[in-house]
C-alpha cells in the first residue's frame, strides 16, 4: 500500500489524533500522531490485515531544538511496505505510552531513547538506562546537553 | 623392598651395622625419589608434547623459542610458575585453599607406585594393584572439591561441583572396564596381569585381542579414562569458555603448577593402566624379556612400556583437540545410561567367555588348532 493510502486509513480510523503526513523530503514518509493515541495506532497498524506492520525496524528519539520527537519506522514482512510514525513531545517532561506490548522489539530501543533523550515510556516492561551507568545525570544526545565536569571524581 | 634392602646390605658389608628397618626405609625413599623424578619429567615432557601436538593439528608450530625446538619450554613454565606471586583470595578458607593442591597431587602421584615399568621395575608389586589405583585416584575428587569450595569464587564452586559429579560417576565404568584384564590374569597385581599377556603369541598375546568383549572394553575404558582425567570432551571442571577456568581459577604460582602437574600425572597413570591391562605392558612380542640379563631386560621392557604408554597419551591428545565439550547433564547421562550398562554387559560377556572356553582367548584357540 502507498503511504498516502496508509495515512488515509489511519485518518479515517483515528480522526484528529493523526495530524499530517510528512511526505516530500521524507523517505519513508512520516505520519504524525498525537502522543496519547500511540498505543492504539500501533495496535491497529499491527493487527489490521491490510496494513500488517508486524516488524518495528527502528525506534529513535530526535531533538528538534524546540521540541523532542520519537520516530518509529515500521515494515510489513507480509505486505512488503514501510511507513514512519512520528510523535512530537514537549521538551520539559516528554512522555508517551510504550509500544513494547505491541512489538517486543521496542523494549531495548525505548530504553535507549529514554537513556539518550529522557523520554519516559509509560507502561514499559523495564525502563532503565541501557548504555550509560545508572547514576549518570543528564541525557547526552539532547542538543542542550552540557558535558559534566566530573563523574565520581573522574574528570570527564 | 626388604629383598632390595638385604641385597644392598650384602653388597656393601659396612652397612650391616645399620638396623635393617632404616635400610628398607632408605631404599623406599630412594625408589620414591626416582619415581617422583620420572613423574615430574613426564609431566614436563607431556605438557610439551601436548602443545606440540596441538600446534601440529591446528596448523601452527607450537613452542619453539625456549631451547632447541622449544624442548625446554616446560622448564621455563615451571620456573615461571614457581617465581610467580602466589595469591590467596582474601575471604578464601586459607587452610583448605593451601591443602587442596596436595590432595590432588598426592592422588595422582601415588598411583605411580603400582605402574609396571619393566620386568622388575615396579615401585612395589602390590597384590591389590588395580584396586589400589582405583582407590587412590579418587583422592583427586576431594582435592578438586576442596579447591572449588575454598577459593570463595562462584565459578570455582561450580567447577568443583562438576568435578565431583564427573570423577565419581566415571570411576565406576573405569573400574568395570579394567575387570576383564583382572579376570583373565586371575590376579589384581599389575605385574601378573602383564605377565599373563606374555609375548610368546606375539602381538596377539595382548588382552586386546583375547576376545571381542575385551576389545570393546578397551574402547569403553579409553572413553571413561578420558573423562577421569578431565580431557576435552569431558573437561567440564575447568571449562575455559564457561566457568572461566573452573576450580583452579583462583590459584596461581606453585599451587597452580601442582594442579597442572597432577593433571598430566593422571593422564600418564591412565595411559599406563591401559597399556598394562590391554596392550601387553612391557611384553616384547615373540621374545621373553626375562631371559636377558637383569639390566638389559629391564631397560628394554621399560622402553617398550614407555613407547606404548606415550602412544596412548598421544591418542588421548588427538581426541582432545578434535571434539567439543559435553554439557553437565549430558555428561551424567552418558556415564550412567551408556558407559556403565555397557561395561557391566561387557564384564558379563567376558566372564561367560572365560567360563565357556575355560580361560583361553581366540589367539590361544587358533594356536591350539594350528598345533603351535
Amino acid at each position, binding site marked *: 500500500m502507498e503511504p498516502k493510502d496508509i495515512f488515509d486509513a489511519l485518518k479515517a480510523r483515528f480522526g484528529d489524533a493523526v495530524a499530517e503526513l*510528512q511526505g516530500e*523530503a*521524507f*523517505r*519513508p514518509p*512520516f505520519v504524525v500522531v498525537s502522543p496519547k493515541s500511540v498505543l492504539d495506532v500501533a495496535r491497529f497498524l499491527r493487527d489490521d490485515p491490510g496494513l500488517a506492520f*508486524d*516488524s*518495528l*525496524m*527502528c525506534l*529513535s528519539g*530526535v*531533538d528538534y531544538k524546540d521540541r523532542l520527537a520519537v*520516530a518509529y*519506522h515500521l515494515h510489513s*514482512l507480509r505486505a*512488503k511496505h514501510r511507513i514512519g510514525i512520528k510523535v512530537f513531545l514537549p521538551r520539559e517532561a516528554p512522555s508517551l505510552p510504550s509500544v513494547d506490548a505491541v*512489538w*517486543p*522489539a521496542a*523494549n*531495548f*530501543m525505548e530504553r*535507549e531513547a529514554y537513556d*539518550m533523550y529522557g523520554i519516559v515510556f509509560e507502561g514499559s516492561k523495564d525502563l532503565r*538506562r*541501557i*548504555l*550509560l*551507568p545508572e547514576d549518570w545525570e543528564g541525557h*547526552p*544526545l539532547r542538543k542542550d546537553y552540557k558535558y559534566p565536569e566530573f563523574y565520581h571524581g573522574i574528570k570527564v | 623392598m626388604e629383598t632390595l634392602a638385604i641385597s644392598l646390605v650384602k653388597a656393601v658389608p659396612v652397612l650391616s651395622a645399620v638396623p635393617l628397618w632404616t635400610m628398607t626405609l632408605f631404599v623406599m625413599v630412594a625408589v620414591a625419589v626416582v619415581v617422583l623424578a620420572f613423574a615430574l619429567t613426564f609431566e614436563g615432557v607431556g605438557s610439551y608434547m601436548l602443545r606440540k601436538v*596441538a600446534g601440529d*593439528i*591446528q*596448523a*601452527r608450530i607450537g613452542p619453539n623459542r625456549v631451547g632447541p625446538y622449544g624442548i625446554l619450554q616446560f622448564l621455563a613454565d615451571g620456573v615461571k610458575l614457581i617465581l610467580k606471586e602466589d595469591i590467596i583470595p582474601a575471604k578464601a578458607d586459607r587452610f583448605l585453599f593451601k591443602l587442596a593442591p596436595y590432595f590432588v597431587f598426592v592422588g595422582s602421584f601415588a598411583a605411580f607406585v603400582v605402574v609396571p615399568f619393566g620386568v622388575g621395575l615396579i615401585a612395589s608389586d602390590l597384590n591389590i594393584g588395580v584396586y589400589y589405583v582405583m582407590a587412590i585416584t579418587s583422592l583427586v575428587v576431594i582435592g578438586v572439591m576442596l579447591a572449588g569450595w575454598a577459593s570463595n569464587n*562462584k*565459578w570455582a564452586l561450580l567447577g568443583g*561441583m562438576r568435578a565431583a559429579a564427573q570423577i565419581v560417576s566415571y570411576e565406576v565404568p573405569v573400574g568395570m572396564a579394567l575387570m576383564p584384564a583382572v579376570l583373565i590374569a586371575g590376579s589384581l597385581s599389575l605385574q601378573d596381569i602383564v605377565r599373563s599377556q606374555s609375548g610368546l603369541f606375539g602381538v596377539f598375546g595382548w588382552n586386546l585381542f583375547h576376545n571381542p568383549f575385551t576389545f570393546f572394553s578397551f574402547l569403553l575404558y579409553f572413553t571413561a579414562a578420558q573423562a577421569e582425567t578431565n580431557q*576435552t*570432551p569431558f*573437561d567440564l571442571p575447568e*571449562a*575455559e*569458555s*564457561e*566457568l*572461566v577456568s573452573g576450580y583452579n581459577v583462583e590459584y596461581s604460582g606453585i599451587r597452580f603448577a601442582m594442579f597442572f602437574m597432577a593433571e598430566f600425572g593422571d593422564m600418564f597413570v591412565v595411559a599406563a593402566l591401559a597399556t598394562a591391562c590391554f596392550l601387553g605392558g612391557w611384553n616384547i612380542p615373540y621374545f621373553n624379556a626375562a631371559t636377558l640379563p637383569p639390566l638389559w631386560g629391564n631397560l628394554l621392557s621399560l622402553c617398550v612400556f614407555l613407547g606404548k604408554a606415550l602412544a596412548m597419551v598421544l591418542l588421548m591428545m588427538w581426541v582432545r*583437540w*578434535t*571434539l*567439543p*565439550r*559435553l*554439557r*553437565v*547433564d*549430558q555428561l551424567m547421562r552418558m556415564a550412567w545410561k551408556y558407559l556403565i550398562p555397557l561395561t557391566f554387559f561387557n564384564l558379563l560377556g567376558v566372564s561367560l567367555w572365560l567360563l565357556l572356553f575355560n580361560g583361553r582367548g581366540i589367539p590361544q584357540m587358533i594356536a591350539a588348532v594350528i598345533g603351535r
Partner: protein
Amino acid sequence: MSAVDAKAQARTEALPTTEMTINMGPQHPSTHGVLRVELRTDGEVVSNARPDVGYLHRGLEKIGERLTYAQFMPFTDRLDYLAGMNCNCAYAWAVEKLANIEVPERAEYIRVIVCELNRISSHLISFGSFTADMGAFTPFLYSIRERERVNDLFEDICGNRLTYNYARIGGVSGDLPPDFIEKTKEFLDYFEPKIDEYNELISYNKIFVNRLANIAVVSAAEAVAYGLTGPNLRGSGVAFDLRRDEPYSVYPKLDFKVCVGTGERGKLGDCFDRYMVRINEMRESIKIVRQAIAQIPEGPVLAKVPRLFKPAAAEVYVRTECPRGETGFYLVSDGTVNPYRLKIRTGSFVSMNIFEPITKGLMIADIVAVIGSLDIILPEIDR
C-alpha cells in the same frame, strides 16, 4: 501428593536453598566482547539471565553530529569491527540516498565484492569463536587461518586489515589493485572445499549437535515480533534477506539463494539452525563474489562529490544486510555540513533484546551457546 513427596517437600522447606547470582562478564572468555550477564541460577540451571550492555559505549551518534558526513566514515568501521566494509558501505549508501548522489557502476560492483568477502570473514570468526565456546579449539584456528587470507586481500585494496575506511560518499577510495581479481579467485577456490571440511569436522559432530539442537528455540512469529534480522531471523525459517527483498546496489543483477533454517537436527529456530544458516551463507557469498568478479565493468570508482557538500534538509532511513543482521541509518539533515541526527540501528542490539526471554531455564553452558548462536558483537550494541 504421596507421603514420600510430602516428606521431601517438608525437608526442602526446612533447608531453603537460595538462588545464586553470578556476574558473567563484563570480562568473560565467551561473551564476544564487554557484555555482562547477571545470571540468577539454581546450581547450574539459570532462572533469569539479564544482559547489561553499555560498557563499550563511545557515543558514536553524538560524534556523528559533530563531524561532517565524510569525516564520520572511519567511525563506521568501529561499529562492527568484524565487518568494517559492510558498515562502511551501509553508511555510504545511506548518505548517497539522503543526498541523491549517483555512484558509478564499477564502484557498486567493488562494494558488493568487498562486502561479501567481509561477510565471509565475519561468518568465519562467528563460526570459529562459536565452536571455541563449545570447547572445540581446533576449528577456531582453521577459521582464523582462512580469515587471514581475506585480510591480506583487504590490505592490498585499502591498506588496512581491520578498520578499512574504504568506502567514500559516492564510491570507493581506490580502484582494485591489478592482481586483486586473481588473488580473490585463488582464495575462493581454496576456501570452498574448506566449508565441507568444517561441516565434517564439527558441524555434524554428535556432541556439537547435542549441545545445540533444541536450545533457545525462537519461532518465526517471535523472531519477527522481536525484530530479529539477518541470520537470526532466517534461522527461524523466515526467508527475508534485504539483498533480495529490498534490493540495493547491483544485487538485482546477481543471483543467489537465501539460506533459511530447516530444523535439520532439532526444532526449527534453535541454535543449530542459526549456526547452519551462517555456514550456508558463506557458500552463497562465494557464489556472489564469483559472479561480481565476472561482471565487473570498467570505469571510474568515485563520483565527483564536494568535500563539504550540504545535502538538502531531509530525513531518510536506509538499511542494508550486514553479517549480523540489518544495519539501518536514520539520517536527519538540516542542510548544514554536519548530520543533524544520525541514528544507527544494528542487528546485534535487537538480537540482545531477545536474549533474556529465550534463556529462561537453560543451563550455564547453554547461555554460552545462545550468545554464540545469536552472534552478537558488543561495539555494535553499545555504539
